[in-house]
Structure formats: structure tokens, C-alpha cells
């Protein structure tokens, strides 16, 4: 599904060069649930951003669905992101000015989907995460757990092949975190590939593969 070959990433700040990742070889198969773990600052989120094409590697190559990502030109990469990935962020990143239903519709706006169909798909996604009754609410009227469910609904509404979650339970208490984890496992069982960055060992024990990162490198 996703193949990273000898991928590296360097950040340049003023005159300081920081090597965030080096020599990353990683293959994520279809239907896998992969947890990326490691200490803070080791490069987990950078790796997730590279997988999701939110950032450009400094070296190496990335293949998505068997095809090499050769161009990071705006239009090309935007289309690829929209069709392939759904993102879940630790701090939810919902748009507070929009209602829950409008937030969930967001990925469909950038496809040629008719308004009526868009609304129906968003409603179905919200019902799937158990928030069918909160469609007209605004994000700040919901609890943290509910907001993360909205974020998950937004991530799955376009039926992406891969869900990328960056510490999705990091801002939630253990009960709500557990519920979110259940939801991600259910989505994985239904055929969605999930890649998740987490610090939570308990959550990681529930998935079928753990990838550990240390000092910008994968460790066994």
C-alpha cells in the first residue's frame, strides 16, 4: 500500500541543520493497523507527515498504491491526498466557525460531489461515529471525545484507503481514548489501513504491528 525507501528528512533553521529522519525503509500493507511509537522528538510525527504527503522528504522515495510519488506539485499532491488519506490530529483541528456537518463535508468539497450527496455522506459518517444527533452543533459545543469523533467522521467521509492518526487519544481521558481506539479498530476491521502515532503502550498492544523510531531511525 505504502512503501518508503531510504527516506530522510532534514530541517533547516537559521544556520542549524537538524536531521529528523534518516534511512527509513518501511512497507505498510493494505488493511494493516500500524502504530508508530518512540520518545518525544524522535521523528514519529515527521514520519507520519511524510507518509501522508503533508511534507516532502529530503531524500529517498515514497510509493503510494504502487506508484512512486514523483511530483509534489500542489495540484497533483492535493488530489492524491484527497483520494487516498484521511487525517486525524491530536488537537482535532476542527473549524470552529462551521457546524459539525459542514466540518465533516470538508474533504468532499474538493471533489466533484453534488451538495445533496455530500450531505448524505457526511450524515452517514457522523452516524457511524455515533454523532448523528450532533450534526447541527458547533465543535466548541462538544466534549473533547465528541470532537475527536467528528474529526474521525471527517477523515472517513471520503472513504480513504489510509487513515493517518497523530496521537488521536493524546488529549483525551482514558475512557474516551479507549472509545476512540475501539472506533479506529472497527474501521480497520472494515478494511481501512490505519497508521497511528501514539505514546500509549496499552493502545499499541491492541494493534497488529508496532514500528519504533529512535533518533530518526527505525529500530527493531
Amino acid at each position, binding site marked *: 500500500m505504502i512503501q518508503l525507501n531510504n527516506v530522510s528528512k532534514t530541517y533547516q533553521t537559521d544556520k542549524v541543520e537538524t536531521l529528523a529522519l534518516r534511512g527509513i525503509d518501511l512497507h505498510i500493507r493494505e488493511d494493516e493497523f500500524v502504530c508508530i511509537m518512540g520518545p518525544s522528538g524522535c521523528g514519529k510525527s515527521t514520519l507520519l507527515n511524510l507518509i501522508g504527503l503533508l511534507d516532502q522528504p529530503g531524500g529517498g522515495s515514497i510509493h503510494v498504491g504502487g506508484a512512486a510519488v514523483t511530483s509534489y506539485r500542489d495540484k497533483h499532491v492535493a488530489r492524491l*491526498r484527497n483520494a487516498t488519506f484521511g487525517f486525524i*490530529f491530536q488537537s482535532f483541528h476542527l473549524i470552529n*466557525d*462551521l457546524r459539525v456537518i459542514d466540518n465533516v463535508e470538508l474533504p468532499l*468539497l*474538493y471533489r466533484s460531489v453534488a451538495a445533496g450527496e455530500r450531505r448524505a455522506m457526511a450524515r452517514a459518517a457522523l452516524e457511524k461515529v455515533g454523532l448523528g444527533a450532533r450534526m447541527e452543533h458547533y465543535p466548541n459545543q462538544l466534549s473533547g471525545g465528541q470532537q475527536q469523533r467528528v474529526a474521525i467522521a471527517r477523515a472517513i467521509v471520503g472513504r480513504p484507503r489510509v487513515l493517518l492518526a497523530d496521537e488521536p487519544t493524546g488529549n483525551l481521558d482514558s475512557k474516551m481514548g479507549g472509545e476512540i481506539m475501539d472506533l479506529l479498530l472497527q474501521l480497520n476491521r472494515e478494511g481501512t489501513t490505519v497508521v497511528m502515532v501514539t505514546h500509549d503502550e496499552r493502545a499499541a498492544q491492541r494493534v497488529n504491528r508496532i514500528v519504533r523510531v529512535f533518533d530518526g531511525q527505525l529500530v527493531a
Partner: protein
Amino acid sequence: MFRHYLLTACKVFLRRKLFTAINLLCIVLTLVILLVVTALLENAFYPTGVEGKSPRMLQVMMIEAHTADGNSTSRTPLGYKAIAQYLKPLKNAERVSAVTIPETVSVYQEGRVSELMMRHADADYWKILAFTVLAGRLPTPDDDAQGRPVAVLNAASAARLFPGIATGAVVGRTVSVGGQPLQIIGVVDNALQLNAYADIWAPISSLPSSNYRSQMTGMFTALLLAHSPADLPRLKREVEQVAATVQLDDPRQWPIVRLWADSKLDLFARMLLQRDGSDGGGATLLAGVAALMLLFMLLPALNLVNLNMGRILERSAEIGVRKAFGATSLQLVGQLVLENVLLCLAGGALGLLCAKGVLLWLEGSGLIPYLHVELDLAVFGYGLLITLVFGLMSGVIPAWKMSRLDPVHALKGVA
């Protein structure tokens, strides 16, 4: 998509009330000033109403004389003799009129003294300008020839001199202008335009003294009506050629004489810019006004760019999310510019309303006598154009800058 952008824009404007208010105030103030100035300029220079024949009209206002060594120059208004002898016979003119520059006169009426602006004009004046006659008639060549002591009032002066009397009933009454009795033969509508502005008019031949007939310089302006607008350059050249033959009363002292036939805009520019030569400088003046207007617009636009940059920076996480879910830079620019254009259009609508209010106030206040300005479709069009330029100028730069952000940086709020 458009509905979504619209919804987002409305929510953002309502959430950032202070920003929205400052933005609107900035746009409204600028637009009001620009629209009011445009409307007044259009009223002064656009050929409508009483000066509807402006496109084929020129005026000669000053006679310019130079000493032989070129060290001294004299500029004075024309005398009647200069017009009668040199300008009336112009071949390229359909009509040439002599009319005095408005002067303040005291009118005695039923024990009251009123100060009015008066012109003395020949019969051609009434043929060149298209006054709206409310009652009675306009002076004729026969009135000129006979030197009849008659006068025409405008509506405001008729109401002022004869309060409570219907306009029609004013005709036939007599007023005393500086001790000279003049019979009112007509009442015309009020007019503000350059050549039409006055409260009371009388034939030149009714002037108490006939000295004016022998004066080369004095208090007159000549209005020249060409057969068609295409004849204006020929008419201008003919005036310049005729000027070479003009002899003033003391030709030894002032051997070089020049006359310039100008359009209204050129005449205004010539006086303002102190121009010599056949080009009065109307085009230069217009270019200067346009440049000033642009500069005037540039300052609030720069301010808006700054404000917008701050507003959009606050939304960098939203921009990151949109990019993560498939928005292209172009789509984001479209969204952010649309928000700006919407705000500017709202400001434009408010600005138009306020400009209308200011013009109504100006009309009612009497600061500019006989002002009657309409915010017509052309002015509305200028307003809309100015507003759109504003929206684009202040929206494109910040929108483009923000749309180029990497999604990772945008999500972290690092712009």
C-alpha cells in the same frame, strides 16, 4: 462550494466583529470620499442638462498680452469689443456668445435688499445653453437690439424676491437692480454649471453705460459653439490665428496677444496649472486626479492587506486542514479573495448609501448653491469597480502568501 465559502466568510466576519468593523469603516470612508468627488466632478464636467452641448462648446475667458521683450504679461477677461470684432465672425463657429462673468448686485424689492449673482448676456447665450424655462420666455435678439430693460430670474431667486408668489406670476413684475428697473420676462430652473451659474440675467444692451462696446478687455467670456465636436480642433486653431491679428488699445506696449479657446476641463486646468499654449492641460489634470485617487486608495488598501494578513494568519490551522484534505493553493486563494471581495462589496453598498446621504446633505446645506447631483449608474459603476479593485488589491497578496504554506507548517500555526 460557493455556499460553503459564503458560510465560512459570514461566520468569520461575525466572529471577528472589530476586524470587520474596521475593514468596513476603511472601505466606506474611502468610497464615500471618492464617490462624492467623482459625482461632483461629473456634475461639473460631464455634459448634461443646461450645458448639454458641452462636447461642441469652447470658451475664451482671458486675453493674454505680452510686451515685445517678453518680460511682462497681462491676463485679463475679454472685453465686448474683442468678442464682437474678432470672435463673432469665426468661420468654424455656429454661434458665438458674449456673457459677463457673474458679479454681485443689490436688488431692491419691496423695501428689502437682496444680493444676487448677475450676468449680462446676448441672445446667443440662450441658444447655446439649454435652460429649462419654468415661466415666461428667454431674451431674444430683438431685446438685444432694442436694449430693453428686461431680466430672467432663476427659480430660487424668484422665490426669494417674490415669496409666496407662484413662479408664473413673477413674470411681468419689475425689480430694481442697482437702481435700474428691470422687468422680469422669464424664470428658469436653477443651474450650477460653470457658464450657466447666476441668479439673474439681463441683455448686455441693458447695461447702464455703453462704454463696454469699445473695450478690448473687461468682464466678458466668449462661448463658442462648433457645428460638431469634430470641428473643435479647427475652431481652436482659428481662435489662435485670429489672436495674432488682435490689436489692443495700446499695441506698442502689448504687441503680442494670445487667445485660448478651451473646453471646460481645459479651462479649469489652465487656471489651476497656470498653463500657456494651446494645450490647456485637461489631460494632465485628469491624469493627476486619477493618480491621486489611486494613491488615496492605496493607503487603505495597504492597511487592509496588513489587517487581512493578520486575519488569515490566525486561520493558518484551518488552511493546513483544508490542504491536508485536498484543497489546492488556487482553491484557497479563491476562497480567501472571495471573502475579501464580499466584505468590500458590503462596504461598497454601505459606501454608496453613505455617499448618497452626504450628497443629499450637501444639496440641502446650501454650501454649494444649486447643487443637484445624482449618484447615477455611471457613478455606481465606478463605485463597484473601485470596490472590486479594493477587494482584489487587499486580498490577493495575503491569500497567495498563505496558500503557499506547507500543510505541516500551517497546521502548527507557523506562517
